[in-house]
């Protein structure tokens, strides 16, 4: 009897342990995320009212902020959050035009290198400190101060691209930004410079600014639990707009399938970068849908023109513009988009994002016979083995949407017209990027480069010098660069448009890129939310509302 009892002890123990775990499952659920000491600070009920009646929208992005210091922020998820925390002088609403924001207007001096902005009256930071011209000047000077050694988007890119020299106060509400010379992209670049209040940030110091945020935008900072979430609350004293949602919770969920599961479970409202294989799960959930948008990132195959490839057949071949044009006909881009990217994209006709591209240029059609004919005419007939020439094609892995599948498809299309492609897949960060920076990839290479909707000039600026850092092909068409020199100094919009159209025609007929597509971006959006994604990867929730 006793022995039987004892023999049953072990299974009973097992059952008890299991029962304990299961009972934990049934225990009242605590908030999904919270900071120590604040147990219900981040109770997540996406798009619904929180316990205090506030409306909240929950966005899941893949990476967290590194710090709260505004001028170290460099990632897109980071700039998405900070776009709600801070105002800028002008803003890019994603519609192709730049609109006044903290500034009412601006004027230029005769040379065009001094831009004077007039601020709206009554602006303040979230602690009540008035936002004046002095703060605008301080913001630029703080970002540019080499002692601060900032490497973020504003300090590490915008100010350099702007040709920023200094800033000065003209009056309480007027500040002047001084540039090296006239820059046609100035207003667009300035639209990325967040405005900080001087006294507040001087008091915080660099150390304080990395742990606290005092913003100037439509939402104020509430709390940040690293690698977990960041909570913003609507700032009711903001006078430039009035967003619908009282709170925005930015969750960090690195794994795409987990983001998708949270969206379907109703715990988040917007998820980013949804891979094509998860679209059906979202669309069939009855709770959310995939919103696809042709992004501004230009995906292309570069024809590297450097002499170091002259000792290869392929390297020599692609120096001939006729060969580069011929290869445009060899790749079926719409089919690649439909089958590999789950998106009906239109092939790019130039390096400039619509609507700023040249409307007279038609995308090259898929016509392998034409490609073969042009290659024959260019002096590259098929040999006995059916091969016209051998060429190396290099690509990084894991950076762009379905990149490996796309480059394999391109390699096959090229092989079909007799180009024997040696496809080399590399680690993106460790191998490909360092080689790309040195212009040492290719002769064929696959890459995507960011673009914009607000200016065609911004997009063509990639090729501003024959050996420029982003002219990875080192393409050197004198007609292009003559026009670029004029374009970068031209202030007349009509002349700018003419020059841009001419440049894009040159690009079309002597293409340094095998033109592909603008990379689609996929968002999962809850049915409860009324929000339209933008083309430029920016998530702006100031105009989001609940669905009717």
């Amino acid at each position, binding site marked *: 009897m006793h022995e039987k009892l004892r023999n049953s002890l072990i299974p009973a123990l097992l059952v008890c342990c299991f029962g304990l775990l299961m009972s934990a499952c049934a225990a009242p659920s605590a908030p999904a995320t919270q900071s120590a000491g604040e147990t219900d600070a981040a109770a997540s009920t996406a798009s619904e009212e929180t316990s205090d009646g506030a409306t909240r929208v929950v966005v899941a992005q893949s990476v967290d902020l590194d710090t709260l210091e505004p001028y170290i922020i460099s990632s897109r998820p980071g700039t998405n959050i900070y776009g709600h925390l801070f105002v800028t002088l002008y803003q890019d609403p994603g519609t192709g035009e730049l609109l006044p924001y903290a500034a009412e207007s601006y004027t230029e001096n005769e040379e065009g290198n001094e831009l004077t902005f007039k601020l709206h009256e009554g602006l303040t930071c979230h602690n009540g400190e008035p936002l004046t011209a002095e703060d605008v000047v301080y913001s630029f000077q703080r970002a540019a101060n080499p002692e601060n050694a900032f490497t973020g988007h504003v300090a590490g890119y915008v100010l350099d691209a702007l040709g920023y020299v200094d800033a000065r106060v003209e009056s309480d509400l007027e500040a002047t930004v001084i540039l090296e010379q006239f820059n046609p992209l100035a207003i667009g670049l300035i639209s990325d410079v967040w405005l900080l209040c001087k006294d507040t940030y001087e008091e915080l110091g660099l150390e304080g600014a990395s742990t606290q945020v005092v913003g100037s935008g439509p939402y104020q900072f509430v709390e940040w639990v690293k690698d977990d979430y960041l909570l913003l609350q609507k700032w009711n004293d903001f006078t430039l707009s009035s967003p619908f949602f009282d709170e925005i919770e930015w969750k960090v969920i*690195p794994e795409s399938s987990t983001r998708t599961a949270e969206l379907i479970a109703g715990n988040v409202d917007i998820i980013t970068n949804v891979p094509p294989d998860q679209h059906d799960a979202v669309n069939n959930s009855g709770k959310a849908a995939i919103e696809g948008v042709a992004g501004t990132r230009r995906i292309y195959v570069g024809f590297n023109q450097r002499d170091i490839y002259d000792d290869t057949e392929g390297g020599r071949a692609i120096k001939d513009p006729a060969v580069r044009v011929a290869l445009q006909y060899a790749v079926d881009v719409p089919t690649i988009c439909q089958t590999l990217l789950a998106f009906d994209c239109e092939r790019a006709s130039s390096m400039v994002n619509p609507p700023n591209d040249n409307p007279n240029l038609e995308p090259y059609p898929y016509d392998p016979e034409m490609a073969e004919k042009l290659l024959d005419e260019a002096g590259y007939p098929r040999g006995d083995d059916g091969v016209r020439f051998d060429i190396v094609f290099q690509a990084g892995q894991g950076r762009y949407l379905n990149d490996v599948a796309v480059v394999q498809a391109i390699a096959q299309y090229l092989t079909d017209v007799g180009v024997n492609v040696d496809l080399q897949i590399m680690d993106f960060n460790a191998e490909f*990027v360092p080689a790309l920076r040195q212009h040492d990839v290719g002769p064929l290479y696959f890459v995507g480069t960011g673009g914009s909707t607000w200016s065609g000039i911004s997009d063509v600026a990639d090729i501003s010098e024959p050996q420029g850092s982003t002219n990875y092909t080192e393409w050197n068409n004198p007609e292009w660069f003559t026009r670029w020199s004029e374009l970068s100094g031209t202030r007349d919009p009509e002349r700018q448009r003419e020059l841009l159209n001419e440049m894009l025609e040159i690009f079309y007929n002597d293409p340094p890129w095998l033109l592909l597509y603008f990379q689609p971006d996929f968002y999962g959006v809850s049915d409860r939310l009324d929000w339209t994604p933008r083309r430029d990867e920016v998530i702006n929730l100031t105009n989001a509302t609940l669905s009717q």
Partner: protein
Amino acid sequence: MGNYLIRRLLQTVIVIFGVTLLTFFSLHLAGDPTLLYVSERASDAEIAETRAKLGFDKPLSRQYIDFVTNAARGDFGNSLRTRTPAFDLVMERLPATIELTLFAMFVAIVFAVPIGILAAMNRGTALDGGVMLFAMFGQSMPSFWLGIMLILIVGLRLGWLPISGHVPVLQPLFEGHFMVAFENIPGAINHLILPGVTLATFSLARNARLIRSSMLEVLSQDYITTAKAKGLRTWTVVGRHAFRNALIPFITIVGLEFGFLLSGVVVIETVFSWPGVGRLVFNSINQRDIPVVQSAVIFFSLLFVLLNLLVDLVYTTLDPRIRLS
């Protein structure tokens, strides 16, 4: 014993030195970290300027010597991404990782022991076969796949448990918020089960097999037959004579278990969006945030080595015949 301890501690220093050397140079072998801190449109001058700001313009050997010298003084440098002390970042994330690892260890040990003993005592039966089948599956399934399956089935379809997130217990405890820590326990367990079970499954399966085989070996010893012949009850024979001796190989594994589970949290924390050291290290490797990676690796190497030492010391308690020399 004293000499043994001194020798082991000296070995620890050599191990840690080797770890820093390997980590430092392998991170630099993976490309120029500067390129991750500049815009894709940055000019050569901007890249050079950023390289200097980050301190990567010095010769590699100089950078390494500086790092080791400072680390010996307890200064692991500042994170390149956050500009805050790298070691503090690791310590901030540590409580969440400890919670997950301890929970997984609990599952892997507490369930493995009875399962292994049951299988050994019922050798050749359907129960034994079932346990072995479970063990085979448990050791074969990749943890990221198992995690995603649990999310889809238990979290999403059945809706029994949260899909991702974390409710802290240790952190409020360390900060002196005892009531908060206590109130958070149910929620914490709720959030721990899916990642904890995912992390523990491999170890649970392996431990169950180990206990079973170890028990089978001990149960066939003459002294067990003698104990049975003396009329001792089955539970006394198993619990007092067999199990204790079967524990020696298991303790070795348990000692290494913590380190093994810590290596697994990198994947699990990413899948379940768990804000621990694993994710910090994963992100830091991607961003080539060398001071943070170094801090985490050195800390965990030290922990691993000390745990091994502890295991060796526990041997002598479990089996007085073992002498450390």
